[in-house]
């Protein structure tokens, strides 16, 4: 957390009610209130001074975030605050948009993601992603899960069978679909489809799972199942998730990052963020007084 002597800074401790938002709205630089409890945790993804523009529009400002290994980290914030953009920057999904320009650095296991020689294809194999809307391929359940292996050229049926079963078990879907692995994935319910997508994401054995509002299209029961699944998967996988649902962030995540207008406002253990946030703005947001 380097300081610049010339640029006036809003000290979190000194922030008045609305002070942070005002500063942000005025375009002043702002330094994230990162809780000290985050410091000892070992990070798998390091984001440093990360800026992102869509054409002339700036979407992310100086994001600095360390995602702890094996834990669930939730990104919260009002719509348009840049949560999804930040998430999609981690596996360079934003590359698909022609006008995107970035600055700053992002590292996975210490390797830079945006340096010139990086093979995006290889990078994405190490990061699984689950999208807002369930997006199973129009193939069989089996082939959906096997897809990451298929594209790597794996043809051994035994290996595929094993990975499919393991992934479906991990995704909590095995018992429901074991008899109809050859059925179309599009026949599954929304919640099942989303768990299938999680299964597909982990079939490639990634270190990090990115979940982009994975429950926003699901009913409460399916949502509950996904949240349970997230609890089961953490430890083995590092999970970075975007959510609009405060309760979900509270229930499912270990750490929470609150974003606003492209800035990361406050970042700390979920308990602290929800029970004792440093900033009034964070408290207002998580208690629903603002947002």
């Amino acid at each position: 957390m380097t300081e610049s002597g010339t640029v006036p800074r809003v000290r979190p401790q000194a922030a008045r009610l609305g002070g942070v938002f005002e500063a942000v709205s005025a375009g002043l630089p702002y330094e994230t209130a990162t809780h000290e409890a985050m410091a000892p945790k070992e990070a798998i993804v390091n984001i440093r001074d990360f800026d992102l523009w869509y054409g002339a529009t700036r979407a992310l400002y100086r994001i600095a975030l360390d995602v702890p290994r094996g834990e669930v980290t939730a990104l919260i914030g009002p719509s348009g605050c840049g949560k999804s953009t930040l998430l999609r920057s981690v596996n360079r999904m934003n590359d698909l948009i022609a006008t995107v320009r970035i600055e700053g650095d992002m590292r996975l296991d210490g390797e830079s993601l945006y340096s010139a020689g990086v093979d995006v294809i290889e990078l994405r194999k190490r990061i699984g992603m689950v999208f807002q809307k369930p997006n199973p391929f129009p193939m069989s359940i089996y082939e959906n899960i096997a897809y990451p292996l298929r594209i790597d050229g794996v043809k051994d049926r035994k290996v595929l069978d094993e990975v499919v079963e393991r992934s479906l078990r991990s995704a909590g879907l095995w018992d429901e679909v074991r008899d109809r692995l050859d059925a179309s994935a599009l026949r599954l319910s929304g919640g099942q489809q989303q768990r299938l997508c999680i299964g597909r994401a982990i079939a490639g054995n990634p270190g990090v799972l990115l979940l982009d509002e994975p429950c926003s299209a699901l009913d409460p029961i399916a949502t509950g199942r996904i949240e349970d699944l997230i609890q089961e998967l953490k430890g083995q996988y590092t999970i970075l998730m975007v959510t609009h649902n405060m309760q979900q962030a509270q229930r499912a995540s270990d750490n929470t990052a609150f974003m606003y207008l492209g800035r990361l406002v406050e970042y700390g253990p979920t308990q602290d963020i929800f029970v004792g946030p440093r900033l009034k703005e964070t408290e207002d947001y998580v208690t629903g007084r603002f947002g």
Partner: protein
Amino acid sequence: MHADPHSSASSAPRVRKTPRSVRRAERLATASITIGGLGTIAVVTLIFAFLLWVVWPLFASASVERLPTLALEGVEADSPPVRTGTNDEGTLGWRLRADGRLDVHDLATGALVQRQTLFEAEGATAFAFASAAGDDHSLPNVAVGFADGTMRPGRIAFETQYPTDVSEGVREGDAYEGGLLTRTPGGQWRLDRLQTSLQEPVSLASARIELLDLSITPQGVAYAFLAADGTLQITNLQARFDMMTDREVFDVVAKPLAYTADAALGPPSHLALSGIGNTLFLVWRDGTTWRYDARDERASAGYEVVEVFDMLPDDPEARIDRLTHLVGKGSLVAADQRGRLHVWFASRPAGAYAADGLVMTRGHVLVPDGGAAAPTTALAASPRSRLVATAHADGTVRLYHVTTEQRLVEAGTQRGLPAEALVIAPQENALFAWRGANLERWQVDVGHPEATLGSLFTRVWYEGQVGPAHAWQSEGGSDEFEPKLGLMPLVFGTLKATLYSMLIAAPIALLAAIFTSEFLVPRWRARIKSVIEMMASLPSVVLGFLAAVVLAPLIEDTLIVVLVTFVALPFVVALGARLWQLLPARTAVRLEGLPRLGAISAMLPLALGVGILIAPTVERLCFAGDVLAWLNRGRGEAAGGWSFMLSPFAFALAGLLVFRVGGGWVRSVSTQWSRLQCALVDLLRLLVVVAVGLLLAWLLGLAFGGTDPRGPTGTGLAYQPRNAMIVGFVMGFAIVPIIYTLAEDALSSVPRELREASLGCGATPWQTAWRIVVPTAMSGLFGALMVGIGRAVGETMIVLMAAGNTAIMEWNAFNGFRTLSANIATELPEAVKDSTHYRVLFLAGFVLFAMTFALNTVAELVRRRVRRRLEDL
């Protein structure tokens, strides 16, 4: 109703109400949409019904109605006619007796209209009649041979006059000056009268003329006769305009034929001189036939028998009752004693044994119902088509169509007495049978006997051909020409056009669609799409014109370059891709947009350059230095051609070998290599593929070299400048835009989420495109192809101008073809309304309609299936 805007603020909340005008507009819109929709359905149904209505009479069967028997005035029951005839309308009939008496009767009443003596009774021994010579008034159509060896040619023909000086009191139908007087619709008098003339005797032989025949030849008239002393001769009277006397004179050219009377055979019963008077048949009652070939004009000695055959080969007991030529005198019809008709004509099979390369073949046998009938008493051929009528001893008459082997009509006479003479009225609307003093009449509607489902869609044995074949040849040089109305060559041509244009268009359009939707930046996608769509705005007549006038001669001159470029293009592209990999990663990423597109576009001219560069070498190695000569079998061996033809296959095989078999190993060792090293190895592998492919192609050429793909000399693969390849290029160009647009839409409509999911799994853009996007868009891509095929099937102008329009059935890319659509466009303006030809052209349109309809239906079914499978799996 409307609240005042100023007071509305204070008044109660406004009650919302739909204005009446909105409701009216709604009703109007509903009504007009309904009318439009129903109207469209009605119009399509009407078009369909109209096509059916025009086509339907083709398949209606012939009908016959017997008219009451007429007693012919002044005719004795026991003086049979030598020959009878009628005028075109079938209102007057003549009847010639052996003693020279010629009677003309009104065929509606039986009244005697005219009686004359054509020649003096004594000595007439042989008669010959040429039915087809009717229209040329200067040429004889009858010849009479006499006992003193002389012959008198003459003419018997009806003529029509329009007299203006008919006296008062004469009524229609009255006998008038030896003719029949009728009123035209315009109120004029019309007089139909038989005109006869007989020239002075020509001395042919010193003995009695036994058999006589005459034919109209291009030069004049040919007479053939057999005299009692064994003289067999063809005498050509060739017309020549004499400058000195300012008159037409005849040169007599006598062609003696070798004939020795055979005691075992006895005297021949028939003599038939064929078409243009240079082939003569001597026929005995038992079917034995000698064929003489007198085509060689300069032969000094007598012409010999070139072929001996039995016209009734099935039954040794059979005998010929009657013999006649069909119209055009190309076919002989022999009626045997069981009422069967045997139709013989000359064909030119590959292994003919006769000296002139021709062999007489029995193309058709027409059998009465039940396999046999009573002996034939009279046989008549129609003067304008291949209809033949027979009269039998039991009094029945039958009408056949020879080519399609149909029996159209079978009818009996009132008293069951056999006819002595039979005539099919020239307009084919009536059948007349003379018997003693009576005339039997039938009104006939033969319909369209040459068009049956069988003759339209299966092989038909046409006159002069070696066997049944599909053929389309609707018009010929003369009235005697037999139209060949097989639709299969046209259906074939349509399919061939579709195949070749799809071979060009489908890969280009689909790959272009995949490229623009999956690999091109969106900004450029929109521009390129609109450019390709602009291609569709070129009128097809312009494309056809360019194809025929510019492309066809150009490609004929540069055929080898075009062919080599075809093979070279994939290599140039593969090479380009590998060279691109050699670029540093940073540079490659920076050049990904427009420069890469430009580099890809440069591949085609580059391939053309390579083609130009290596074409002479390829031509020398594979085609003995001249590909056109090679194709025409002028020179070179088959092996070189095979090598070239199979080279794409060889290269594909080599690629498969090198990349599949060696791929795993390379992949396993390459993990540690740098980008540059990988690229270099890839480049090396491509070179290995080229080398292996060349070797394989050479080996394949050797392996197949034993069989020649070029077919017999002068046919087969010979090159026609307007051919399927040209059509493939140009029609392919025409249908690329439609396929491309629809395919691109289908690919673009694949949800972005699926692409993201695949890329998120670490798939490359190509894997994403091939494994996810293309299968998901499959039904749309299929639909796009089907629309392209539909366009190709119906396309007219391009094929009309660039396909050569030869109705042949060969898949060869260097041959032309004739499509249904081009055929309709060419021939319909010239077809006589309601003629068989006209109706068959409508049938061709109906077939085209059915083809596109079937295509669309199949496409829709497959599309649904694919879509359902994607959902169900």
